[in-house]
Structures are given as structure tokens and as C-alpha cells.
């Protein structure tokens, strides 16, 4: 706690009353759930499309690097594209890593997208990077050569539209046709230790976990903000429940 506060001070130039907020959390999460959605900016790619989609759906949001904004949010979206190593370095340097751990421990809704999903696992094969470890498991690269079931060579990155098989319907999938496709662009994919963490799977040569969950955390390898109507539906479900 002390660590976070000191980092927050350095970041914002003022004292952030995070211990106070956390204390209140023990009694009622509503004490600091201002109805605000925070989208974490950690210099990993373009967040504008996530912001636009959320606002298009009629939800307020703020893009932030402030630890206080993360800890005081009602829900958090953790997007991102780019390199796991660079992202982790930024998160550690700013103390946002600790803020994310603390936010997730609070039980409030947390959505990881693409790189934001990969780095909530324990480690990534991408430059052998230690990650946040919120969900047990690792992130590995698609094998090469990657072949389809008919022996065709498949391309890496996995770029484009693909289906997500979801045998049991998670609340964030409400109203989404099971035949819907989502937009992917990635060369690495998450492998959670527990089968229970897998909500949806996608096949590109091999089957991989494309939607993960654990308690209040939901995480997608695809980009809901670029996945047309089903993607918007997914975001609406997350923002509105």
C-alpha cells in the first residue's frame, strides 16, 4: 500500500488517498464506485478505438495513467497492442502494475483486451517476459509451420475475423449469436493453467483460449472494439452489468 502511494505521489505530484479508499472497500465497494469506467493508458498502442466504441454505446469513460483513477473506478478496461516486454516495463515503472493487482483484488469488473489479456497471465514467451500473474498460465507463440486440418500453411500473425466457440454462455456474451466472428491480430496466444479459466476458444491451426475469465476478470484475445456488432454487444454487456 505504502509503495503504491509513494508511486502515485511521484506520478501526480499530490498525495493520493488510496489506503483510505481500500479500507472502505472492506465494507462496501459502492463507497468509491463512482460509476466511472477507466481505460488504462500504458503507452501500448492506440486506445482511441476502445474509447470511441465505449462512448458510442453511451458510457462515460476516461483514459488514464493515474493510479487513483484506476483504484477509484467502478470498472476498468485494459487494452493494448504491441510488445509484452515494453508494456510490462511501463507498467512497473509507473506502478500501474500494483494498481491493477489491487483493483482486481477488489472484485470490481476488469476487462483485458489483446495485449492487455496476455500480460495478465504469469509470463509471455515474447522476449521471455514476466507478466502480472493475475491468471495462472503463460503466453506462447503460434508454432511454425502452422498447418490447417487440411494441411494448408496458415499465416502468423493470426489476422482477421474468426469464430469463438463458447459452450457455456457467460453474461458478457448475452445476446451474441454463437456464429459471430471477432477481429483478431496477434502472434502469441494465452494458455491458462486451469481449464476453468477458458470461456471461449478459437481455432487457427490449433485451438486456443480466446476468452478467459477468473472471478471478476474477463479477458479477450480479440478486439471487441473492432469486431462490428457482436463486439459492441460484448462491450455493452461488460460496461452495463
Amino acid at each position, binding site marked *: 500500500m505504502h509503495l503504491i502511494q509513494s508511486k502515485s505521489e511521484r506520478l501526480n505530484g499530490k498525495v493520493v488517498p488510496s489506503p483510505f479508499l481500500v479500507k472502505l472497500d472492506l465494507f462496501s465497494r459502492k463507497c468509491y464506485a463512482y460509476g466511472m469506467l477507466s481505460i488504462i493508458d500504458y503507452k501500448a*498502442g*492506440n486506445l*482511441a*478505438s476502445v474509447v*470511441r*466504441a465505449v462512448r*458510442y454505446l453511451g458510457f462515460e469513460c476516461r483514459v488514464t495513467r493515474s493510479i487513483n483513477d484506476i483504484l477509484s473506478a467502478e470498472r476498468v478496461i485494459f487494452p493494448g*497492442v*504491441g*510488445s509484452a516486454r515494453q508494456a510490462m516495463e511501463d507498467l512497473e515503472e509507473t506502478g500501474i502494475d500494483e494498481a491493477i493487482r489491487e483493483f482486481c483484488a477488489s472484485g470490481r469488473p476488469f476487462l483485458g483486451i489483446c495485449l492487455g489479456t496476455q500480460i495478465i497471465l504469469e509470463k509471455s514467451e515474447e522476449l521471455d517476459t514476466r507478466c502480472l500473474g493475475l491468471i495462472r498460465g503463460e503466453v506462447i507463440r503460434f508454432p*511454425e509451420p502452422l498447418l*490447417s486440418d487440411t494441411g494448408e500453411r*496458415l*499465416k*502468423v*500473425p*493470426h*489476422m*482477421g*475475423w*474468426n*469464430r469463438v466457440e463458447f459452450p457455456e454462455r457467460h453474461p458478457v456474451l448475452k445476446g451474441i*449469436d454463437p*456464429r*459471430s*466472428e471477432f*477481429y*483478431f*491480430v496477434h502472434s502469441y496466444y494465452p494458455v491458462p493453467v486451469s481449464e476453468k479459466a477458458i470461456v471461449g476458444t478459437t*481455432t*487457427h491451426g490449433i485451438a486456443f483460449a480466446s476468452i478467459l475469465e477468473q472471478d471478476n476478470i474477463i479477458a479477450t484475445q480479440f478486439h471487441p*472494439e*473492432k*469486431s*462490428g*456488432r*457482436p*463486439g*459492441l454487444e460484448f462491450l455493452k454487456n461488460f460496461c452495463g452489468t
Partner: protein
Amino acid sequence: MLSKRIIVCLDVREGKTTKGIKFKDNIDIGDPVEMARRYYEAGADEIVFYDITASHEKRDIMIDVVTRVAGTIFIPFSVGGGIRTVQDMRNVLLAGAEKVSVNSAAVKDPAIIADGARAFGSQCVVLGMDVKQVEKIEQIPSGYEIVINGGRTHMGIDALAWAQKAERLGAGEICLNSIDADGAKEGYEMTLTRMISEHVSIPVIASGGAGSPQHICDVLTEGKADAGLVASIVHYGTYSIKQIKHFLGERNVPVRTVW
């Protein structure tokens, strides 16, 4: 299974969609923001805006178009044409494009590919290639040469070697345009598309020559393309996106249906 993408290309000149044949005789055909929205609703998998505005001073119009499109459609879209520097790339990405396509600037200075990939990630950097068939000579062993200025300037660079170099430099995707086939509606350049696609591991978008759903089907199967770019075939209502996808689906080409 990954779907094959149907990508709609909108040529934009001073804020208006336009269509020319073999890079000449352009006519205005509508508002790009409105057209993008319509194609998004109709099931296009991606949109490409190609800025053909000649004057440098009027380039800001394109940034405005990109900003307005970004708040309207929720599928990936890219912007190309007139991208000269990493700052040009940053401008369109910040305005809301997912990808930016570089073409002649990369031919003149390939470092822009690596610089762009480092700054924004490979997934943002599309290499646009304009290609013409030529006689096979030592310098052009594939028989396909890189051209710029709408095909008027031959660069003495082999198309296959260039595609492979661009991949090494960090391009995330290739948009392969055959100048010979462009605008003629007689089908994509199959030999070229297949050759490039089989020799790089990044996705290849076939461009130039779509006149019927069969052409698109051919380039996505025989031509090994990952996506097909369409323009006049859909702009003039000859075929709808839905008709094209239905045709492909019936022939077992995996395509995305909007549910």
C-alpha cells in the same frame, strides 16, 4: 477457421470518394464517411481509404474524414496514399485508423517500414505494392517489377524480393496491386498474387481487377490471397457484399456473415 476478408477500397480526393480506371479519369461518387458506414452495415470486413488528393495543402481534409469514420464504424480500417513520414503515419493512426499503408515512400526509403513498425507495431503497417509484369531479366527474376506514380515510373526492383524485404523490415501485411489488372474487371493477377502469398508469412490482400464474385473466389483459393480488395464492383451496385459473400460461402470459402 480464419475467414477470408472482403475489403472495400474507397479512393478519396479532397474529401470525396472517387473512382478512376487505371489511375486516370476520376469521377466523384459520394461521401466517404457515409459510404464507409453503409459498407460496414453491409458486412465489409475492412475498409481501405486511399487518399489521392494531389495538393499537399488539402491533405488535412483526409484527417477529418478519418476522424469522422472512426466514430462511425467499428471494424478495422486503413489509410494509404501520400504517406511520406512516420509523422504522417502517426497522424492517421491518432485520427482513428487501425492501419496505415505506405507505398512509394517505402520504395524510396525502406526504413519507414521499420520505423513505423517500431513506433506503432507491425500490425499497423501495411506495405502497398504497385506491380507490373515485365520481361524476366537478371534484376527482375520474378518477372514482376515495382512501379510508382500510378505505373509510370519503373523502379528496377523485383516485386517478390521487395515483398520479402518488407516482411523482414516489419510490415504486418501486404496490399498487392496489379497495375495491369487494375480497373479492367477481368480478374486479379493470379500468378503474381499466388507467388507473393506463398513466399511471405504475413497476410496478402489482392488488389486490382475484381469484376465478379468468381474472380474474388479464384484469388482467395487458387491465388492464395488472404483478402480481396473490391471497389467498382460494389460501388456501382453490380454486386453487393452480401451477394459476394454468399457466392464464396457456397463454394466453401470461409467468409464472415453478419448475424
